[in-house]
């Protein structure tokens, strides 16, 4: 199939970017979206042009790197897929595909389609951990965890930090990501010890980094490649409220 593309090109964080149109002949419908971009880049390199910079790593939907905003949707069309899991058969031949980087104050563009996603690391550094003594592993049965709680915690922990939630949100809010991280700890015994400080520290960091507020639009849930539910956001709202009224003034 012949592919028509409109791609955001930006030399560096400082410079202004613009859309550039490309065409790619003889792409196969079986190609993944990233393979199609590889083919485009090979063509550009052979022509002596600068290839399109985009992020990727695992190419199997677990690292969360391949953050592309395709035709008005993070990770393009399809439910619960990352860009690397998307195939060219999902597109109509002849229709221009528009590719943009994530747009958010928290994630400035570094080059072309690559954004700086350090903001998520900063939120995790603020509280997304447990302070564990690294000794010998204890017997697994010494901490009992209810099966349904373990399942719920796992559902929250499947977040790959790709930031599609921020990209999809009309307010560029990071609530789904932060709430999934808060939840995966809050649901388990090991995480409960620091739960109050954690939720406050992570929310404070999230606000500080300039992400928007939640308007409960739920576009995040619709676009999450891992199907993380907005019930996590409700849980964080409860946790935060409990923590605020339950801690002393410092």
């Amino acid at each position, binding site marked *: 199939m012949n592919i028509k593309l409109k791609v955001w090109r930006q030399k560096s964080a400082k410079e202004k970017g613009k859309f550039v149109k490309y065409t790619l002949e003889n792409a196969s419908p079986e190609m993944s979206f990233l393979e199609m971009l590889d083919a485009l880049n090979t063509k550009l390199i052979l022509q002596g042009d600068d290839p399109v910079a985009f992020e990727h790593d695992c190419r199997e939907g677990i690292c969360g790197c391949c953050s592309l905003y395709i035709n008005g949707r993070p990770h393009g069309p399809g439910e619960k897929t990352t860009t690397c899991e998307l195939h060219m058969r999902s597109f109509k031949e002849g229709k221009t595909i528009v590719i943009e980087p994530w747009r958010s104050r928290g994630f400035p563009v570094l080059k072309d389609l690559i954004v700086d996603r350090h903001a998520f690391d900063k939120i995790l550094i603020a509280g997304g951990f447990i302070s564990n003594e690294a000794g010998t592993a204890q017997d697994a049965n010494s901490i009992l965890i209810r099966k349904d709680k373990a399942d719920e915690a796992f559902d929250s922990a499947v977040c790959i930090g790709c930031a599609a939630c921020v990209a*999809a949100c009309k307010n560029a809010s990071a609530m789904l990501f932060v709430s999934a991280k808060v939840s995966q700890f809050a649901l388990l015994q090991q995480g409960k010890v620091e739960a109050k400080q954690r939720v406050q520290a992570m929310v404070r960091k999230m606000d500080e980094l300039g992400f928007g507020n939640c308007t409960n639009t739920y576009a995040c849930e619709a676009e999450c490649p891992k199907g993380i539910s907005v019930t996590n956001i409700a849980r964080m709202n409860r946790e935060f409220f409990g923590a605020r009224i339950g801690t002393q003034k410092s």
Partner: protein
Amino acid sequence: MSKMLRYSSLTKKYIMALAGFLLMVFLLIHLGINLFIIPFTENHQDIFRDGVHFMTTNPLIKIMEIFLFGGFLVHILIGIILQLRNWMARPVRYAKSNHSQGSFFSKYMIYTGVVILIFLIIHLGNFYFVKLGLTEAPEGMSRVADDHDFYNMAINLFSNKIYSGIYIVLFILMGFHLNHAFQSAFQSLGLNHSKYTPFIKAVGDFYSIVVPLGFILIPLYFIIYY
């Protein structure tokens, strides 16, 4: 005010939701009295006047009124603060507009909110300020109203077709606001539950249709019968 700016995004939303709940209860009570403008009982006028008398003189209601005005003020101020921050969070817009699924009316909360606010000001001018003696009661309309005769003042307004039209459009837009607002307020307060949330959403849909429809019935009655 400056303290309000420093609240976390979550705290702002709790306040917003709590104030919203207060406003939604107020709307119900207001509707309950207003409906007696329509003559579906013999003594509808008396019931309406009794209702107005109770609401304008009861000391407990006077105290509630302070909370109500506070609720409006806080809801509006925080609504605007949150919205400004939300716009700032995406300095460069997407070229291709968003196609993600989501609560449709949530995207227009600030606009439907501002429409409600404009109407609120007109509405206060028509009734509340008259009661306070800040504005004159209307004169020279089809029926002359005295200062506290809210019944005739309402009839005066609704006998104006343009006013009635605006009133109907306003309440449709308010229905849009309420449709997202009801379930959103529960979520903001952390109340999301696999068993109860579908029910809350259904009640929200019902509320957002029935309450505006109730208000709309009144001008509709005047348009049809006068």
